[in-house]
Structure formats: structure tokens, C-alpha cells
């Protein structure tokens, strides 16, 4: 049986098309993926992403503990700052990718993918040899993403907090609509700016309705997970379960920038990642633009022009902004280089495509 966020009935009342996503009954679209996508790129849109999981890690050794299970260097962030990171497994793969918020000197909030909540919790808990507590608080938090170029100014006008100077991957904690301790962070999965709001589950429906009411005059509308996927793909962002998983290396996935091999603490597969890095690129997650009208889809094989199997598509869509098919996929060296012509096999025909530089869409 699928799980529901506190906004389930609200989505149904808004006549959203509901689908099973990561075990949750979620809105894929309200009116149209293309329209919702354009709203976020040009103005702003509101997403319910409460299916995401949250863990708290607290205690004198919270930092040491988290450094030992994640690849990025968490010692570099201050209170009020967040960091994108990943949890590696022992076989060189990825347990999950996540965002870590530093709430206090020795208190962190981990935000993980819905499909991985139980797996992540068990994995992290099993490695807690530190003076720190790990608590799964997923059911206590709802998460709304208010995304788009006008989102930050809009929420700034509604909140007592001064959010005007809020830098990317920073957050403030304060009052919103009479609720206290709301986390407002300049993060998101769209590339168009905006904020994410961490709200107590029992207040989620009220905040959602209040935002849509206040936003009516500003053209604010709800946006489903369909547009969330097209927005993230235009930016070349990875989706766990599609582009990265338990078998993919963060080095191959282009996540070297969050895999800090020079940090002093050890973490699972660190030596393996160092070896991979020294050996040079074997394969790489690439951005692919198709010259045909057909769309590349997860699982399609990728061939070189001389018919060698060189990789596989992991994500694909029609870019609503560019109106051309785009995708991500792992491609063997040396075919991973920008400008390389490749062929994508749909099963019935081979589509001409080219390796390009991500992001597909430049957003101001």
C-alpha cells in the first residue's frame, strides 16, 4: 500500500494526476508538465516534496560520525549552511545522495530520498560508534519547495525573517504564518532558485493553502513531480535510482566535487575512489542531446558511430525549454568527451545524438 503525505487530499481536490513515486501517492501534474515547468523557469511554483526523509544527528561527536559516513567535507560548513553530499557503500557505489543542514554546533539535519529512508537509516545507524544520536524524524517534517526566479522575494515579503541576502545553500530558522522554527533554505532541485521550507507535518496543509492564497496575485501555482523531473534534467542533476545507485561510483557520476578524498576522516570506499581517480576516467555520466524527435529513456543502449556498445541511458525527457529530447547516460571513455557523436538504440531505431556540456539550459 502506498503512503501519503499530509497534502494527499489537497492534491486530489486540486484534481492532480496522482502516481506512485517511491512508495508515495504523489501528484505528477496538476494541469500540464509543460505549463508547470514554464511557471518555475519564468516565475515560481510550489511543490509538495514531503515524501523526502529527514534524520537528526546530534551529540558531541555528530560531526565526526557524519564525516565517517559521507563523502563531502562537512567541517567546512557553518551553522545556517547546508551541503550536498553522498553516502558511499563498501563496494564503491552510492547508498544515497543527500543534503546536510548544520542546525547548531553539534546538531545536523539530513535530508534523504524517499525511496531510501529505511535503507539509509539502517546503514548509518549500523556505523554509529560515536557519542551521537541518530533519529528518524521523517514523519514530523513536511517539505515544500517554492521554486523560481521570483520565489525568494515572494517568501521574503511574507516572513519576518530578512531573506533578501540568503545565499545559495544557506538557511534561516524563524517564524512563518505564526509557526515557529520553520527552516527556510535557499536550496532546490530546479536550477531556477527559490527556497525549500521544512514545516511540522500537522501544519503543512495550512502553510500550503496560505502560500497559494497569498501567491494568487503573483501567479503562484502548484507544480507536480513531472515538472520536477524535467526541471532537474535540464540542469543535469542526478536522480537517485535512475542516474546513481548502489552500483555507480560518485567519480563516474561526475560527483567528484562532493567526494573529498583529501579529508582526514576515512569513509567507506575512500581508497577505491582514490584508485579510480588516479586511473583516470573509465566511464562518465554524460549529458546527451538527441538530434531526432524521439526521446532517450532509462535503459536504452548507447553505441559509437562504428557500432560498439559504449554505454546506457539513465534518464531522458523532452526538454520543455529547448523543445528537444535530452538525457543523461553512462558512456565509456573516450566517447564521453563533449562533441562526440553517439547513437541511442530505442530497440527499433538508432537515434543520432551528441555528448554535450551540462546544464542543458542556462538559467540566470
Amino acid at each position: 500500500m502506498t503512503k501519503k503525505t499530509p497534502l494527499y487530499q489537497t492534491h486530489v481536490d486540486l484534481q492532480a494526476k496522482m502516481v506512485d513515486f517511491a512508495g508515495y501517492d504523489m501528484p505528477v501534474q496538476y494541469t500540464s508538465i509543460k505549463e508547470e515547468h514554464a511557471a518555475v523557469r519564468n516565475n515560481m511554483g510550489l511543490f509538495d516534496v514531503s515524501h523526502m526523509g529527514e534524520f537528526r544527528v546530534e551529540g558531541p561527536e555528530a560531526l565526526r560520525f557524519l564525516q565517517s559516513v559521507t563523502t563531502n567535507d562537512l567541517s567546512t560548513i557553518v551553522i545556517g549552511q547546508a551541503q550536498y553530499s553522498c553516502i558511499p557503500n563498501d563496494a564503491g557505489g552510492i547508498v544515497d545522495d543527500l543534503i546536510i543542514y548544520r542546525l547548531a554546533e553539534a546538531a545536523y539535519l539530513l535530508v534523504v530520498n524517499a525511496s531510501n529512508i529505511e535503507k539509509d537509516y539502517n546503514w548509518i545507524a549500523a556505523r554509529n560508534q560515536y557519542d551521537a544520536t541518530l533519529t528518524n524524524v521523517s514523519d514530523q517534517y513536511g517539505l515544500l519547495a517554492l521554486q523560481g526566479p521570483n520565489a525568494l522575494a515572494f517568501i521574503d515579503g511574507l516572513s519576518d525573517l530578512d531573506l533578501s541576502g540568503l545565499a545559495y545553500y544557506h538557511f534561516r530558522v524563524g517564524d512563518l504564518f505564526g509557526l515557529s522554527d520553520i527552516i527556510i533554505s535557499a536550496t532546490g532541485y530546479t536550477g531556477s532558485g527559490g527556497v525549500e521550507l521544512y514545516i511540522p507535518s500537522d501544519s503543512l496543509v495550512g502553510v500550503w493553502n496560505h502560500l497559494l492564497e497569498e501567491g494568487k496575485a503573483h501567479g503562484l501555482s502548484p507544480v507536480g513531480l513531472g515538472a520536477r523531473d524535467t526541471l532537474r534534467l535540464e540542469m543535469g542533476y542526478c536522480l537517485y535510482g535512475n542516474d546513481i545507485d548502489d552500483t555507480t561510483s560518485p567519480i563516474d557520476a561526475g560527483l567528484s566535487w562532493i567526494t573529498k578524498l583529501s579529508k582526514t576522516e576515512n569513509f567507506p570506499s575512500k581508497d577505491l575512489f582514490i584508485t579510480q581517480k588516479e586511473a583516470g576516467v573509465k566511464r562518465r555520466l554524460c549529458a546527451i542531446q538527441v538530434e531526432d524527435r524521439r526521446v532517450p529513456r532509462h535503459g536504452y543502449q548507447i553505441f559509437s558511430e562504428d557500432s560498439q556498445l559504449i554505454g546506457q541511458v539513465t534518464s531522458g525527457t523532452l526538454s520543455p525549454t529547448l523543445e528537444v529530447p535530452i538525457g543523461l547516460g553512462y558512456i565509456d571513455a573516450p566517447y564521453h568527451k563533449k562533441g562526440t557523436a553517439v547513437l541511442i538504440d530505442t530497440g527499433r531505431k538508432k537515434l543520432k545524438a551528441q555528448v554535450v556540456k551540462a546544464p542543458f539550459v542556462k538559467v540566470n
Partner: protein
Amino acid sequence: MNLPEDLKYTKEHEWIKLHDDNTATVGITDFAQSELGELVYVEIDTIGESIAIDEVFGTVEAVKTTSDLFMPLSGKILEFNPKLDENEEDNPGLINEDPYGDGWIVKIEISDASQVEALLSAADYGALIG
């Protein structure tokens, strides 16, 4: 769901309008277009070909997914709706707007009329999609 009584249906969510001259018009159902979401491209690269029942005769692309089109009856592809064809009007959204009308996909010539009996009625198809 809109299920016109005068059409036949398949479990692959296609509708068939039978004509007197042994031809038929084929499209996808209202249920199918709703499940697929906004259609962005229709590819029919089999015009003039004779194709057996259940074989693929084309593909539709939606933003989120790709779906092959299967022959509801053995026959020959006579015509591809020029309103959908990328070389003509290139308006695949017509399938979403009017799946049983302007959004028709191909016209076929039926090669084995006995296969018609196995097609679903509107009531049978309605029961299938619940």
C-alpha cells in the same frame, strides 16, 4: 472516461472505427492519452507496409514516457494523420484534445476480417480499465 459505443477497442488501449470498404481508422483511447500525459511526437515510419496483428507500427512520445503502437488487426498502413505528422501540421497534442476525432493516428486496410470478432466492445474495454 469517454468510450464511444460505435468503436471497437483493444487491451493495448487503441480504438478502431470500422468502415464499409474493409478499411479502419485507428487511434488511442481517452484513457491512454490521459495516462500518457502531454504527447510531444508521433512517429509512423510504416506507411505502405503490411503488418501483422500485435506487431508495432509506430511510437508515441509523451514528456514522461514512450509507448509503442500495436496493430489492432493485420493489415496495411494506408495513411498517417497529416495533422500529427511532423512533416505536415505536427500537432501531436490533438491526441490529448480529441483522441477519437482529430487525434486519429492511422488508416489501415484490413487483411483478415475474421480478426474483427476478437476486438473489444466499449463495455468490455470499459470493464478492463475499471
